[in-house]
Structure formats: structure tokens, C-alpha cells
């Protein structure tokens, strides 16, 4: 039995040693906003924040999280980036979108006015197969409305 803090809430979890943070979030805690698309750390769909740092939850073992704070898309539902993504049509099928928003939230936290180059650098680990990229860039450029 160990403890996990997700979106400010403490959970007691019981998980086998090899369990990923993504599986714990989705299956045990029912937080299915975090998507798993590749399961091997290549696509960014499962991105969450660990103490504010974008982290791939599908290749993070839940028992290694320790007392770091986990933030998932469920903890960012009122972030202005959500409105910006919708307004700019920065999503199509939407399966990568929670991961995109989590990554973007860390970027605008570090720099509220990132340049196009900085956005492209920070967001290049989040694959969008539908190709919403131009509008994702637009949404992050204009996230403050």
C-alpha cells in the first residue's frame, strides 16, 4: 500500500511493482482523461505533470512517483488553454488533446508568452495524427484570450 497525490487529492493505492502510473490513473482511479496511445513513451498522449514537469505516465512506474504531486488533465479542466484549444479548433479526434494541453500548461507556466519556435520545441513530443498542429500553435500563442 502506498500513497499518491493526484490533482491535490490523496489516494491509497495497491499495485503490483510493474504497474505504470498511467494504468493506475486510468484503471484504479478512473481518471481516463489521460490517454495511452503507444504505451512505450513515444507519442506524448499520456503526458501528466510530476511536480509541474511534463512526464510520460505510460513509462513511469507508479511506485517511483513517491511524494511528488501528479497533475492530470482532470486537474487542468479550468485552465484557459482548454478554451483556447476549442476556440482555435486545435483538436480533431481529440485523443492526443489532453496530453497536448498538459504539455502546453507547463510551457505557459514557464513562459506565458512563448515564441513559435519555443512552442515547436516544447510540443514536439506530443504527436497529433490528425495534424491539428497549426491550430495547436495558434491556441498556445493566444491562450490568454
Amino acid at each position, binding site marked *: 500500500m502506498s500513497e499518491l497525490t493526484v490533482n491535490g487529492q490523496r489516494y491509497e493505492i495497491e499495485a503490483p511493482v510493474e504497474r505504470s502510473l498511467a494504468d493506475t490513473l486510468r484503471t484504479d482511479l478512473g481518471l*481516463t482523461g489521460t*490517454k495511452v496511445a503507444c504505451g512505450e513513451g513515444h507519442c506524448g498522449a499520456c503526458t501528466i505533470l510530476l511536480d509541474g514537469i511534463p512526464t510520460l505516465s505510460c513509462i513511469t512506474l507508479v511506485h517511483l512517483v513517491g511524494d511528488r504531486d501528479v497533475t492530470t488533465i482532470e486537474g487542468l479542466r479550468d485552465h484557459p488553454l482548454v478554451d483556447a484549444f476549442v*476556440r482555435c*479548433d486545435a483538436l480533431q479526434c481529440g485523443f492526443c*488533446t489532453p496530453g497536448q494541453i498538459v504539455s502546453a500548461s507547463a510551457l505557459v507556466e514557464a513562459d506565458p508568452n512563448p515564441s513559435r519556435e519555443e512552442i*515547436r520545441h516544447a510540443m514536439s513530443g506530443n504527436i497529433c495524427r*490528425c495534424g491539428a498542429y497549426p491550430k495547436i500553435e495558434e491556441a498556445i500563442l493566444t491562450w490568454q484570450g
Partner: protein
Amino acid sequence: MARLIRTEKEVEGNYTEQWIVVEEDPLERWPAGALETVGKPVPREDGAERARGQATYTADLQLPGMLHAAVLRSPHARARVKRLDLSKVADTPGVRAVLGPDDLDVFTREPGYPGAPVAAAAADSYGQAARALDLAEVEWEVLDPLLDPDEAVREGSLHDEPERYERGDAEAGFAEADVVVEAEYRTQTVLHNSLETHQSVCEWNGDTLTVYISTQFIWGVRSEIAEKLGIPEDKVRVVCHYMGGGFGAKNHPGQYTFIGAEFAKRTGRPVRCALTRREENLASGNRHATIQRLKAGARADGTLTALQGEFVMAVGWEGFQSWTAGPMKMLYGCPNVSTVEYGAKINTSPNAAFRAPGFVEGTFGLECLLDEVAAKLEIDPLELRRRNHADVDLVDDRPFSSKNLIECYERAEPHWARRQEVRARSEGPWQRGVGMASQIWFGGGGPPSYAWVRVGSDGRATVITAMQDIGTGTRTAMAQIAAQELGLPIDRVQVALGDSARGPYAAISAGSSTVPSMGPAVRAAAHDAARQIIEIAAQRFHLEERVLSLQDGKVVSADDGSWEVEEVTGLLEDAQILGKGARGPNPTGMRVLTFGVQVAEIAVDVETGEIRVERVAAIHDVGRVINPLGASSQVEGGIIQGLGHTLSEERLLDPESGAVLTQTLDAYRMPTIADVPEIVTELVDIPDEHLTSLGAKGLGEPPIIPIAAAVANAIRDATGADVRSLPITREEMLRALAEAKEKARGAPAAV
């Protein structure tokens, strides 16, 4: 009144006669251009749910007691199972059932491709099922795979008879040509890689099977399952509210669904069968590779006298054979055309439709060939295409229902005119150029498709139809169409879709057909509801129906009377108005097609072979545009996916064993945000006056079609090199540059 009519139905070039029932009277056409709601940019209805992670995809569904299936797949491209013992799998803790070739015909003892399913286990967790399968005892006899499509053609290993098409006399056409160009083009196998992998959850409730599935075709899945299981169609309920991408690969139930349904039956539990990313890249379909041996003849003025093509398609072990010769037959007004298509049966994974199947590949070959003709004749490539414009469809000798390709060319001019300036920006090893390519595709949709519109006493409307929104934004487009017809603000219309038990039959989301198939049905249903509101208002206010209309949430009369809609519908209390609508026929005797042109600006580092695409202008003619915001997203997405095909994506095989080397997303390289050029979208937005009450065609596929050729032609413009193989890797780029250099010296090219 329901009218039974006999009409022609076209599905991607094939016409069949069929009976359809048309329920609505023809509606008046809306004027062209932006209306109150239709034609205006509207953010997608379900955007916030998806962005916040609140939308429940098939992958997110958790049912009480649900089991997870894992599949044992052949590691060999071609083999025989000599002995299979699953007893240790069945005895593993957590495993609830196992299935093998004796239980279900989706499993095989003679796999013909790597990834073919051999057996499966269902367990309490996916990990338990997958690990249990490691204990399966399989003795393989490994056989030599057939991997080379040309060799397959020589050996007669084909899926069908070769498909031949002749128009006019190609030999005579070449004889009268002033210039003849021959070239061989190759395109690679590419993988769909929707981010939500193929999957379903199956659950039996009594004798009814509920299938939650990530699909492009709720109703097709329903009938295929009913047929295979031998049960009535109304005993199968198919649910898909949200799905994470399809791109053509999710038109059918798939082996995984039959595996899940059988496990669910045997265990009495709901069962998820989901492909892993690696399985997705092994066995869920792909765009097949092609070899295209093409020849074009033209007079000195650029008029094409003959086109000829031999197309070898590496279809794989089974699956869909795409229409690679389509662009050569359809794009230009060339009187003499001769094509032959071979679908090679080889030991690679089954093919599946992939966004404009065949036309992406065939357009790359044809449009590069056209530029080689233009270069030889020293004619402007855009001008060459104008001179060969097809005024009627020469395949069926039919008029087009509408065609604004010349208008697309006009609008391309300012982008095309940038080439002097672009070339002038070449610097050091970075050479810059501009290329273009045209696009032709289907996209007219067709019947049958149905919708209902329910209006409550609060004056809010719900569109009900069991269609799916695969991420293209069709939910929003349908809301716009209903809102326009009902004269309601968009925020008072919602769309309920995604469940075969909760709405009428709806068309497949493939072939760029959702908006042209579903849109007219939704408009007809909204019209029926609006008519009823007006009838009620007329009686309530003692006015004639003909002086009343619905606008801006109000019933308005010709003499300036105005009542909120809910004042009328509120009379009903709990009663509801229900409008019904159906998609009428396509125009008989006409070809309904989409057209466009793209202009690409690129830079090539001639020392390293690195290619950067810097700007793409896309001009497409898809009839009336319902939502310009969503439409521009479709265009950008198509171009970006196409740039992956053009420059970086390729399924690689071990040439000896046929094993797939690119099963993971680090090896299979899809575009990232850092790879995206500036994209300028222009839609001609002229309603097709012969097609339905909307005049709208589909847009999902057109934008991916011309991009590869536009980039390749820009490379020729920048460097003089003829790239002829996709993806245009640095290796291919450097080969083409070396060949061009040799050619310039007048010496034969080094191979």
C-alpha cells in the same frame, strides 16, 4: 409522402442501380456564401469535452467484471503451425478462457503474414492474458515468404484478374506525340496509426450483443457482425460516441471484435479486445506500396495525346485493392488512355483503405510525370494543366455535376507567381523552388441516410441519427445545418449520435461522404420540424403558414409580427415536435467529384539531401462549405499527414523474413509540430447546383492527394532532380541529385 424511386448509386467510381425511398419534398436551395450559421466558422460542439478528457472513447470504457483479451500472433510471414498446445495458457491464474483455430475461424494454422492471429486468451487483466500466451506451445514450420510484388505478378499471385482500362488508342496517341516521357515511380507502405488503436468491448445481454467500438461505420459493423454470427441485425447494438482517428482503417468490425464477442459469450462477461501499438502496426491495415510504370505523350503545345500506366500494388495477404490508376483515367482530358492494375498477393499484412486510397499514390506518379513533360516542352506546369483540362468526365462520358478546377487554378496564380522570389532566396547549399499538383477525387456521398430532429417545448432542438464523428467535426456541421434550417442559434441545437439503438441508419464516415450524405438528411428533418412549428404558429396566431418563417429563434410573420419559438412550442408542454428526413438521390447521369490544386514551396540542402517544406497553398473545390473553421482543419491535417507520407513515413520489412521493423512510433516517423510548414487554405465554396439541397461535397480526403507530387515537383524546380520514390529520404534525394548531375554532363546516370 414516401416515394419509391430507382436511382443510380456511386461508391467511389462504381455505379449500381438501386431502389430508394425519398420521404421529403425537394427543398429550396440556400443562397451561396455564408448564411446565419451555415458557412460561418463554428468551434466544434464537443471540443471542450474532448479537450478536458471527459469524452469517453472506447479505450476509456470500464464495465464491471470486464475481461481483457490478448492475441497470439504469428511471428512469421509465412508458416505452418505443426503443433499448438494452449493447456498451460488456460491453466494460468487470471485466465478465464482461451480460443484457438478450432474455436473461431479468425485464427489460422497457416499464417500468411506476420501478425496473423493464431490464438487468444481472456483474463482479468491484459497483462495476465498477454503473459499467459507466452506459455503457448507452438511448433512452427517456417516457410519462405513471397515479398516482392513484381515477383508475385510474374508468378500469378494476384488477388483478382488484372484490371484493364482502355480509352481511345494509346499507341496511336504516342505515335502523334512530339514528346514522350517514361518513368517509374514507387510509393511505400504507410501505416494509419490512429492514436486510439483498433478495439472494441463486447457484452452479451441475453441474446443481444452490444459492441462498443472505435469505428467509422456503426451500421456496417452491425450488419457484418449479425451476418457472421447468424443473428438478426437488431440483436446487435453498436456504440461509438467518440473515436480516436480512423483514416480508413476502421470501416469493419475486425478480427478483434469477433474474438471479443466469442470470449464474451463463453465467459458471460464483457470483454475488451484492444490492439497494442505494435499490433496496430503489424496487423490493422496499411496503405499498400505501389510500383507505377508510366508513359505520357504530348504535342509541342502541351496537349496530351496518350497516357499509359502499369500499376503493381503490393496489396498483401488480403484486403482492399486501391484505385491507383484513377487519377490517370480521370484527371485530364486525354483521349487515349491505357492502364493495367495488378494486385499482388504477398506475405505482408492486409491492406485497408487509407485516406484517398490509390489516388494519393496515383497522383504522385501522374503529377510528377506531367511536370517531366512540362520540363521537356519548356511549358509552365500550371499552363500545361490548364491546356489538358477535362471538360466532361471521359471515363463514363458524363457531365460533371459541378467542376471549378479552373477557378482553383486562377486562385493558385498568386501563389504560383511567388516562384521567382522563392528561387531567388536560394542560398549556399539550400536551393529553393515551387511545385504544384492537381487533385481529383470522389466525395459526393449518397443515399440512404436518415435523421430525426426533435424540438422540445423550450425551443431547443436535438438532431438524432446513429452516425459517428471520427474527429472530422461532423457533429458540429450537422448542428449548423439544423440550426440554419430551424432559424435557431447554434447553442440551442445539439446532436445525439453514436448508437445504433438510438437513431436511424447513417452513412459510413469514409470516402469524404459524411457531410454530403448526412447533411441533406439532417436539413430535411429540420425542415420537417420547422414546418410543424409554423403550422402550429399559424393556427395559434390565426395567420397563413406562407407568411411565417423561423429566424433567429423567433417565428416571424411577413407583417413584422415576431414571437419567440418557445412561445409556440411552449403550448405543447411535454409534447414534442419530431421531424424526419432522408437523403435523396444523387443527380442521375452526372459525375460528382471534388477538385483542387496545391502549390508547395520547399528548400533542399543539396549537400546533405535534407528537405524542408516551407509553405503550402491549398485550393480545393468541394461545393458549399458548411464550417470554414473545421474545413481548414481538415485541409491542414490532410496536408500534414501527406507530408509524413512524402518525407518520413515508411513501413520497413526485413527483406529475408518479412518481419515488420517499424512497429513502434520511434521507428515509424510521423510528423511532429516542428515539421509543419505555413499552410494557406482557400476553399472555392460554390454550391454544387445539382447535388442535394446543400450542394456540399466532402473534404476529408482531397487535401492529402496532391501534396507529395507538389513537393516532388518543387524539388525539381529547385534542383533539376527527378525524385521518383516515396518517402523522399535523404538517400533518394541524393540519388536524384547525382542522377541530375550526370544527366547535365550528358553522361549516362550512375545507378
